[in-house]
């Protein structure tokens, strides 16, 4: 075809081009739909599952409110009440709030970025199936008396084996730990997708605010979630094997759990809020018919909030005896975070006020306005509890329950309902009913405030959290009755929404309602299973407003990549800052491997909970096998050469090295691993600082002699050199280089030997992990190293297999690069660990 160097391309499109695109992106039908990986399909499934958990957890909330309606009620027993408040909180936070925003990211981001899909569609599908299976099993524990009872933050010592016998707490620890892994998988997808699959011309400065919010959301997950993963590992290991991380009499400290949990738990609030704020920033300009006022300031607010949120965790621990000056630092940071939050609120108000037309009052607008009111009230009480003296008074009372429901429901659930009403037309044949929508809003708004506002007063009157019942005559009766009535009004609003969904929501990929709000962003372009017919060249933040013919041009295939030049699924990878086209990524289509991997990995974790170790291991092996099968088909190689994407631009269809999306994903994974290890280093130093006299305790064996760490370090360095030497020895395509497999095997062998040497060194001194917290921390370093050594071993074996089957050479080398990157990280972590474990006690002692 002749080259046309301008866009829109005015030449006629070749016959069969659209059909080829449709064939490549066809969604499997019937029962095979569960093997689909298209973001629209799995996005709808993901949002649906999260909403189901919202309903289920909401029902538990109603049971709690019914129990508390009158004093000395015995509708539910104490033990069951403990289970339902734990599962209510856990489900809302871990199975609803985070997954639903991640789901919206998976569903909306490719449309907003006009990408055909996110770069790792099977990873998204894996994350979703893992979450659905793990979440359903976790929630079902409430039906057979196996649910955890320690509250959603599961503080030890209450959750240690001696105070919480049985498997209930283990379901929380292993189940939630597993679901966090699923969240991290989604976060990797979102980071790489947002930075690398934007349309040409959409620089960072033109990115929709929701994309900014999701980028920060995913980065926060990457840093925050490993802390709670480590915490759950430590607690589960203590429960199962008696390593005393949290037992004070053996040098542990229950407060370590609180530090780790809240280092995750406080950013979690903003992990939930920031995407919701991003959604509001998309809805407000459309309803105001005016570009967002203060785009730059909103970006400032999002980034600032994301950072500040990591400096607030201690404000959940004001009453634990921390020195007052330290409380001052965290109190100051807790108040400071109100500034970026306030910036966003004022930007939205300014956008509404700047509009020359009247702000359209639709159902999404009502939910946005409701959000502004409720979230602001929650923010004000947030500043109150950031003040140490007030926190001392209201800690663990219903005031705090009221505060965080105002923040979380106001800050997240109301924007979510606005989102449902606003974006459902993009995925359904019908809009939801505006008339019913207004009823839904008012029922929810009134119901919410009637439920939760009285809780402020109940808390100030001294009503503690988590009580199953209360005696008559304390002045709490009327307030609790009002709250209960409110909760049923709120539930009626949600029920009406569900009815509306059943009546009008008819999911579709290509017959959706056509931009009913006349919005300016790309998700309102006409779409099919392939997303947009062609990928637009973007020159502003509101392309559909600034380029009025864009929708038609894109639909006619007159922008980038109008067909499927490689014959399969593909999208354009652009540079991270200015979004200049770099290469074409070839993506996998429907498949079963990610589904098998997710289901069996969930099974492995859940079987470990009930100590069915042998079957759990079999499931783990099947899951790893499915991952290997999945990975085997990903590296297509450069066989398709370059393709013309339009405007005279030709792009390669394969990329290795730092430009490749696989390289980026591995770097993000390494950052996650390093967050986990930093949390471990913090834990190690924390236990030392609170009990330096037991580091190591009197009578403990001496550290292994210097020869052990030096020998271990030698093995690590030798392995690293072997891995690095492999790179220049990779053969040119079609040739062989016999030294490659032995070098990779040598590298893997050195790492395994180093791990064993480190372990054996400590064992040989007689140090045992169950004796004291020092021993437990020393061996915990090896547990964390084991995960990496195991992963490196698998990746090394995978790379050797690829080489032996002619799928690894100097050009087709992504497999090697991934293995090498993780190897270098593992080596660095092990070397640092040697310095910490062998050097620090000598230095401190």
């Amino acid at each position, binding site marked *: 075809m002749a080259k046309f160097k301008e866009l829109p391309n005015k030449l006629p499109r070749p016959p069969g081009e659209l059909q080829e695109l449709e064939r490549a992106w066809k969604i499997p039908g019937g029962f095979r739909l569960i093997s689909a990986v298209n973001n629209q399909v799995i996005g709808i499934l993901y949002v649906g599952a999260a909403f189901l958990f919202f309903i289920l957890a909401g029902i538990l909330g109603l049971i709690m409110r019914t129990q508390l309606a009158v004093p000395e009620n015995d509708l539910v027993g104490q033990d069951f009440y403990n289970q339902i408040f734990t599962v209510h909180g856990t489900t809302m936070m871990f199975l609803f709030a985070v997954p639903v925003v991640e789901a919206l990211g998976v569903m909306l981001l490719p449309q907003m970025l006009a990408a055909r899909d996110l770069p790792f569609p099977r990873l998204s599908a894996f994350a979703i199936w893992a979450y659905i299976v793990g979440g359903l099993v976790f929630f079902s524990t409430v039906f057979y008396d196996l649910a955890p009872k320690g509250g959603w933050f599961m503080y030890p010592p209450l959750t240690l084996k001696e105070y919480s016998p049985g498997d209930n707490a283990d379901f929380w620890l292993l189940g939630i730990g597993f679901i966090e892994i699923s969240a991290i998988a989604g976060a990797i997808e979102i980071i790489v997708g947002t930075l690398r699959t934007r349309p040409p011309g959409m620089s960072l400065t033109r990115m929709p605010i929701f994309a900014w919010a999701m980028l920060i959301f995913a980065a926060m997950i990457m840093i925050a979630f490993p802390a709670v993963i480590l915490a759950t590992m430590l607690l589960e290991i203590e429960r199962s094997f008696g390593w005393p991380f949290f037992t004070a009499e053996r040098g542990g400290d229950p407060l370590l759990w609180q530090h780790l949990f809240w280092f995750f738990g406080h950013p979690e609030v903003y992990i939930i809020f920031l995407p919701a704020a991003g959604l509001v920033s998309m809805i407000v300009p459309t309803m105001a018919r005016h570009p967002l006022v203060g785009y730059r300031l909103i970006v400032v607010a999002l980034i*600032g909030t994301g950072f500040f949120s990591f400096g607030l965790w201690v404000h959940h621990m004001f009453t634990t005896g921390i*020195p007052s000056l330290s409380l001052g630092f965290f109190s100051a940071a807790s108040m400071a975070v109100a500034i970026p939050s306030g910036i966003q609120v004022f930007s939205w108000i300014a956008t509404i006020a700047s509009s020359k037309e009247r702000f359209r009052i639709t159902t999404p607008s009502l939910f946005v306005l409701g959000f502004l009111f409720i979230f602001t009230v929650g923010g004000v009480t947030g500043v109150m509890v950031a003040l140490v003296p007030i926190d001392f008074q209201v800690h663990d009372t219903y005031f705090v329950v009221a505060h965080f429901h105002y923040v979380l429901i106001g800050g997240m659930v109301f924007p979510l309902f606005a989102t449902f009403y606003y974006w459902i037309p993009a995925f359904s044949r019908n809009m939801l009913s505006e008339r019913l929508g207004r009823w839904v809003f008012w029922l929810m708004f009134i119901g919410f405030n009637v439920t939760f506002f009285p809780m402020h007063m109940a808390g100030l009157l001294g009503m503690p959290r988590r009580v199953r019942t209360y005696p008559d005559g304390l002045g709490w009766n009327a307030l609790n009755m009002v709250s209960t009535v409110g909760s049923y009004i709120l539930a009626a609003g949600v029920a009406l929404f569900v009815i509306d969904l059943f009546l009008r929501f008819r999911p579709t990929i290509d017959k959706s309602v056509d931009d009913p709000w006349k919005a300016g962003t790309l998700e309102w372009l006409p779409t099919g299973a392939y997303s947009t017919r062609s990928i637009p060249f973007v020159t502003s933040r509101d392309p559909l407003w600034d380029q009025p013919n864009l929708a038609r041009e894109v639909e006619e295939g007159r922008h980038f990549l109008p067909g499927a030049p490689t014959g399969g699924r593909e999208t354009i990878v652009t540079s991270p800052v200015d979004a200049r086209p770099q290469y074409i990524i070839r993506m996998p289509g429907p498949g079963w491997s990610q589904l098998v991997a997710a289901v069996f990995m969930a099974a492995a974790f859940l079987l470990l909970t009930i100590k069915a170790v042998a079957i759990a291991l079999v499931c783990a092996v099947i899951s790893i096998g499915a991952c290997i099968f999945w990975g085997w088909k990903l590296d297509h190689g450069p066989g398709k050469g370059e393709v013309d994407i339009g*405007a005279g631009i030709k792009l390669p269809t394969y990329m290795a090295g730092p430009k490749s999306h696989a390289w980026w994903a591995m770097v993000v994974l390494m950052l996650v691993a390093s967050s986990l290890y930093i949390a471990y280093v913090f834990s190690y130093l924390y236990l030392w600082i609170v009990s330096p006299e037991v580091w190591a305790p009197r009578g403990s064996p001496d550290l292994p002699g210097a020869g052990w760490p030096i020998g271990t370090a030698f093995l690590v360095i030798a392995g690293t050199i072997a891995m690095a030497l492999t790179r220049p020895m990779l053969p040119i395509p079609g040739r062989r280089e016999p030294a490659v497999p032995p070098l990779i095997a040598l590298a893997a062998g050195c790492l395994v030997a180093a791990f064993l040497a480190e372990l054996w060194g400590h064992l040989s001194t007689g140090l045992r992990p169950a004796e004291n917290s020092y021993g437990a921390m020393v061996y915990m370093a090896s547990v964390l190293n084991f995960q990496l050594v195991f992963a490196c071993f698998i990746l090394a074996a995978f790379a050797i297999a690829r080489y032996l089957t002619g799928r690894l050479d100097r050009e087709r080398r992504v497999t090697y690069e991934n293995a090498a990157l993780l190897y270098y990280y593992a080596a660095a972590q092990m070397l640092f660990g040697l310095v910490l474990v062998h050097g620090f006690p000598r230095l401190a002692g």
Partner: protein
Amino acid sequence: MTRLDEMRRPERGKLLPVLFYLTIGLLLWGMHLTLVYAAHTAICALAASPLAATITLAAVTVAIALPLVLILFCQRAFARLLGISEGITEPRIYDRISFFLNLLSLAGILWSGLAVAVLSSCAPGR
């Protein structure tokens, strides 16, 4: 406005320097909070010296706030130092975002650091 021709040229901006440029203030704020919290905890737990804690924390606050003030005043020079080219799309937007984030961070550092002046070190919280 970006021209189509620019899409045919290689990228001028590298992500890491741009991210560093945007978040330098916040990184310094994070470093400040980590250092003052860790130093305060360690000095009070191990040495039990309120005076040493107060002096250390004040010194850390000043040592971190000063470079941030410098960056605020020499914003473009700092961008050039990081190799951020004027040729990237809309460079002034990055400048503004970085400026406001640095300002916010400086306020955060001084606000937290002020606690040293009004509260006694090492006194128990309750």
